[in-house]
């Protein structure tokens, strides 16, 4: 309770202002499309604020004449005079900076890091910003682009998972319009589930998570879909080597309501069908996804949104094997402005992930099904209390249903129909946080999130000994509470501005995670298991301390960011050696081991934001380790994602009105990996002897990608362009796997064999908008 008392004391001890003040509030929009603008800066003299995730802002200013300066990335900065005699509503429209045809953009197109404000450890990217980054097979992907930023590491070729500050891939909370996405990859990880055409904004918090977010240890990736153009109908799309996409949006009632539908499908399978070989043309390999959104403005104070996502992957080998998986999310939201200082958002959120495997081999004919489903209610208030304090508080309640595995089989099959017990849990949280601008230079954000995770019946729960053998079984009835884990998560952040161009920030956050993904393969599979905390699986906890220095140089043309962090993790989970990952038992804990982790590192980024030539260099020096009883003699060992050095160079050059060139280069230390310590013979076969977990490293990874975009035709409303890219331009054979085997050339010896996936992949895509 102590943080709460502190919170209330500080809040109300804020000095009362002698001067008479009024509040100006409203929504920031784009003039061309009516889309609300997230994170626009609104300043007046020394006061300032940023628009929230729905474009709403509220700023308390002295009575009389004030000038607001409103700016946002890629938009013309706008000055608005307002005379305050009472609380005033002022909606602001911004114009696109690149609308000035014929002029090469020299304005800032890259989002700057905010020097002021207490938020640190945050990265923002917009679809416009990643437009020119060269990509694999021409498929623009925000999730891939984000991996070029410091502290965020790619899980490797053919893997859309990413690691943030030493965390595992399941420790990232991925939200699409507030709905958690449990598997963000398509085609076994080659592409992400996010169609960049439908995305407005993507913010990734790797540290200092605000109190409204919770549930994962390492990061929050908050993705917001476009609302849909409420001014004009617009159709855009693209045709690439492996996929095509189309985006349609427009007003339902101009200025009031709009819709957006965006779809994407790969057609690699069409090429498979062209093959005369019946064993190839019967294979299935494709994905599609659909984003849709509706929004409706009900007068000045209310706005309703309905958004949904549906995606599906299909993979199949003739009749004998089929694997399909997909996410579905739905969000219904209601924004309400109580008054110029109080903004409310209510969301009802649904999210679902499932996979299905079909197997037909002779008389055996069966299906395996698994699902995770959430119903989620969120209520959040933003209270712009006065010019020094802004408060956010709310609650969140999620009901999780997990169906770990169900088999349906035909009567001739040797496999029995069976179902593992469904697992139910209720994750309730309340949060409150205040940002207090203590002085011109010093700001403090303090808050807490309190999470109560209740495991509900019905079902069997177990007690186990250290070998993972069941010693006792407890049976719970439907709705009965098995256990409730209550965890307070303090969230603190402070900033000190030396001057307008330099600041230092520090933060401490605790995060708690109750949904865990367990995997023992080197790449993420759609069939990896999500499990909820149980009486034996304790909530994962991470405490992160970080400090950063931020500097803008040469009149904001360049920016330098330095951040360092230390993270302590409890209740980390891993499979036992030799675990049966397909075990047909409700006692999954019998296959697991628990331990702790630590991670620390230094991140640097130098960015050039303005001019014909823009880009950044980022470098991360880091270490991440685990210590799990039963692995590597219970000693600290490197986590698989431990990479000492990680460098990315991203650069874009606007040659002329027609051509934009781009390139990026990445280099990182190879992942930690387990190699044999020796070999022996059993079963007339040479097999390998292991002593330590992750005692070796994969070879260093590096790659250069090049891209060029050619604008074929551009008018005020229409655009057509061709994008060319070459992935892995110098054909580096980066190790995807290293295997050990009896030598083919000399069977009396053993050898190591490296497999690389992509070597020099050119692609071309055509994009249009009208």
């Amino acid at each position: 309770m102590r943080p709460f008392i502190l919170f209330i004391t500080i809040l109300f001890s804020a000095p009362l202002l002698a001067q008479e003040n009024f509040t100006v509030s409203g929504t920031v929009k784009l003039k061309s499309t009516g889309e609300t603008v997230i994170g626009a800066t609104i300043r007046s003299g020394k006061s300032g604020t940023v628009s929230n995730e729905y474009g709403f802002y509220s700023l308390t200013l002295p009575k009389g004449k004030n000038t607001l300066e409103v700016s946002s990335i890629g938009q013309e900065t706008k000055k608005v005079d307002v005379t305050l005699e009472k609380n005033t509503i002022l909606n602001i429209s911004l114009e696109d900076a690149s609308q000035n045809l014929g002029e090469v953009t020299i304005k800032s197109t890259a989002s700057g890091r905010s020097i002021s404000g207490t938020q640190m450890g945050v990265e923002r990217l917009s679809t416009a910003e990643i437009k020119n980054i060269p990509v694999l097979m021409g498929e623009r992907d925000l999730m891939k682009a984000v991996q070029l930023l410091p502290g965020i590491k790619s899980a490797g070729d053919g893997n859309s998972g990413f690691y943030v500050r030493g965390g595992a891939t399941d420790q990232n909370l991925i939200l699409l319009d507030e709905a958690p996405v449990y598997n963000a990859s398509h085609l076994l990880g080659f592409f992400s589930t996010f169609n960049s055409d439908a995305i407005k904004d993507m913010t990734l918090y790797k540290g200092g998570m605000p109190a409204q977010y919770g549930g994962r240890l390492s990061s929050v990736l908050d993705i917001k879909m476009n609302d849909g153009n409420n001014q004009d109908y617009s159709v855009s799309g693209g045709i690439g080597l492996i996929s095509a996409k189309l985006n349609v949006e427009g007003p339902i009632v101009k200025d009031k309501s709009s819709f957006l539908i965006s779809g994407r499908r790969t057609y690699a399978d069409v090429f498979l069908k062209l093959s005369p070989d019946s064993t190839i043309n019967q294979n299935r390999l494709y994905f599609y996804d659909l984003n849709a959104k509706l929004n409706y403005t009900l007068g000045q104070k209310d706005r309703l949104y309905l958004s949904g996502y549906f995606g599906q992957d299909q993979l199949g080998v003739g009749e004998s094997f089929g694997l399909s998986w997909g996410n579905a999310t739905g969000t219904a939201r209601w924004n309400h402005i109580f008054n110029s200082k109080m903004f409310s958002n209510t969301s009802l959120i649904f999210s679902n992930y499932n996979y299905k495997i079909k197997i037909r081999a002779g008389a055996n004919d069966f299906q395996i099904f698994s699902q995770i489903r959430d119903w989620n209610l969120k209520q959040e208030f933003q209270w712009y209390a006065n010019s020094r304090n802004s408060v956010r508080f709310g609650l969140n309640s999620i009901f999780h249903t997990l169906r770990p595995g169900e088999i349906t089989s035909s009567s001739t099959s040797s496999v029995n129909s069976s179902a593992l017990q469904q697992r139910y849990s209720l994750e309730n949280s309340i949060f409150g946080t205040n940002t207090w601008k203590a002085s011109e230079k010093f700001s403090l954000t303090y808050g807490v999130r309190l999470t109560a995770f209740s495991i509900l019946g019905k079902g069997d729960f177990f007690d186990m000994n250290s070998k993972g053998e069941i010693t006792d079984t407890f049976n719970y009835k439907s709705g009965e509470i098995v256990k409730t884990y209550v965890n307070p998560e303090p969230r603190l952040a402070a900033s000190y501005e030396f001057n307008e161009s330099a600041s230092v920030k520090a933060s401490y956050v605790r995060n708690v995670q109750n949904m865990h993904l367990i995997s023992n393969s080197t790449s993420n599979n759609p069939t990896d298991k999500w499990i909820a905390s149980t009486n034996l699986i304790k909530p994962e906890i991470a405490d992160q301390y970080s400090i950063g220095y931020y500097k803008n140089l040469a009149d904001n043309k360049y920016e330098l960011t330095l951040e360092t962090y230390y993270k302590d993790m409890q209740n980390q989970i891993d499979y036992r050696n030799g675990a049966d990952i397909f075990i047909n038992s409700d006692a999954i804990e019998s296959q697991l081991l628990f331990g702790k982790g630590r991670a620390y590192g230094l991140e640097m980024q130098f960015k050039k934001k303005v001019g014909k030539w823009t880009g950044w260099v980022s470098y991360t020096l880091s270490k991440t380790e685990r210590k799990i009883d039963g692995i590597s003699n219970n000693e600290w060992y490197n986590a698989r994602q431990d990479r000492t050095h990680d460098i990315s160079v991203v650069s874009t050059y606007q040659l002329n009105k027609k051509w934009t060139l781009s390139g990026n280069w990445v280099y990182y230390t190879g992942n930690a990996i387990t190699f044999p310590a020796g070999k022996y013979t059993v079963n007339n076969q040479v097999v390998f002897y292991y002593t330590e977990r992750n005692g070796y490293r994969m070879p260093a990874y590096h790659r250069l990608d090049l891209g060029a975009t050619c604008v074929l035709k551009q008018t005020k409303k229409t655009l057509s362009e061709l994008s060319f890219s070459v992935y892995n331009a110098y054909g580096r054979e980066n190790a995807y796997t290293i295997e050990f085997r009896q030598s083919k050339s000399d069977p009396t010896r053993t050898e190591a064999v490296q497999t690389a996936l992509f070597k020099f992949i050119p692609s071309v895509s055509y994009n249009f908008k009208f």
Partner: protein
Amino acid sequence: MQNIIKASLVLLSAAMLQSCTKVIDVKLRDADKKYVVEGILTDAPGNCRVLLSKTKNFSDNNEPLGVSGAVVSIKDKTNGTVIALTELTPGVYVDASFAGTPGHSYELSITAGGANFTAVSVMPQKIKFDSLYITKEQLFGDERTLANLEFIDPPAFGNSYRAVQYLNGRELTNIFVTNDDYTNDKKNYAKLFIFSDDDADKAKPGDTVTVDMQCIDPVIYRYWYSLDQSATGNNQSAAPANPVSNITGGAIGYFSAHTIETKTVVVE
């Protein structure tokens, strides 16, 4: 537009899904040598043997390093009989006549170089090997000739099986194990998948396919399962590790008391 699609097609076919494999040089640190036990007792005489060896460095040759002069015995814990094995060739200890009885528990004892290793395995009841036949399957654009086993799993849970396949008398090293976790009390059809690219492992018309069906101890199922998952060097496991062993005293390997039944079929 047409040109773009045409160009795309050409580029796609040239570039898609190219993966390249090469032998690389990896420097591996040497580790202390461990004893390796491979102990087998079946319900048929002539199969009782214990192979004792030591692990080798990765850079050494593949010839097993047999350990001579060990004292090796197997005790029938159910009736108290102890059989001492004799060393046939270096590291190979046998008894020509000893056969186990289903339902009995056996204990292997080894004394070698001042160390003692023991292991216990229960020989399961024998399940009838009903039939062996050949089917042709399409596997990733390749027609494969696969052996199929049929047997009926009994009503109680807890049965584990292993199949050993021979092609023209040569033992294939693939590990086939299954248990009744998902198939209890059912007629089982086990297909012995072979994914090897080696032509020598592919059955052709006229070839003789022989399969030993073993009913194994669940502990030994775990051994073969985990060996296959994480110690053969060619798997996608993020955490390669030594298989789950039933040997105590610090050696690796296994001791399996199992039943055995053999069938042979000629590929048509």
